[in-house]
């Protein structure tokens, strides 16, 4: 079972992720002799408080993607009865671990513009992804493991 492990940085479990176009879109781009965009590298925070994963809008712009659906999302400042309406994109993710990459193909993630300059992350990996594996936080050792 592949896994990602690391030390907590500022109390955060951070991993490297490559975001690419989904497999169906990849096939369509090749079929029509278009260039397939290279996957975009993003540093992401593992976040059990998010039920859905979100990435900076620039990721989807670089992949030249349009959304496939819209969903209501509640944030800390959102009144529960008026969720934000956000765009969801069909992508393929690959987690970087142990010198290799491990695919999570055909995943829907949202666009989120909420990153602070200098904090070094542009994505939250939420429970939609974490529930596909085994996430362990070892607080006293300041380490984490995500096996999948």
């Amino acid at each position, binding site marked *: 079972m592949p896994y990602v492990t690391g030390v907590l940085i500022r109390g955060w479990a951070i991993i490297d992720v490559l975001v690419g176009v989904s497999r*169906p*879109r990849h096939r*369509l*781009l090749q079929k*029509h002799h*278009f260039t397939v965009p290279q996957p975009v590298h993003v540093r992401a925070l593992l*976040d059990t*408080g*998010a*039920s*859905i994963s*979100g990435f900076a*809008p620039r990721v989807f712009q670089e992949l030249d993607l*349009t*959304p*496939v*659906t*819209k*969903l*209501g*999302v*509640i*944030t*800390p*400042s*959102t009144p*529960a009865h008026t*969720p*934000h*309406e*956000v*765009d969801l994109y*069909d992508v393929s993710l690959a987690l970087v671990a142990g010198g290799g990459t491990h695919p999570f193909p*055909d995943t*829907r993630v*949202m*666009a*989120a*513009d*909420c990153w602070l300059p200098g904090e070094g992350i542009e994505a*939250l990996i*939420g429970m939609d992804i974490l529930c596909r594996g085994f996430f362990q936080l070892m607080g006293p050792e300041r380490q984490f493991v995500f096996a999948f």
Partner: protein
Amino acid sequence: MALEKELETFRRELPGLLNDPANRGTFALVRGEAVVCLYPTFEAALAAGYDKFGLEAFLVKEVTDHEEPRYFSRNLRCPM
């Protein structure tokens, strides 16, 4: 904004779709001003969207009168 027309179409057609209980919980494939077809899963609707419309934009939405919101632990700067 992306998919605005498709979202408007879906909202217009949703009450009619909900009139048939068999449609509830299915997923609508929407393109322009038409609900193209209903599918049992999001993945099936998405695959049909790629088959029918290729690289052009289309919308997939669940036929429901209560869509469960997702939770995101940061504030968003503006509606996406």
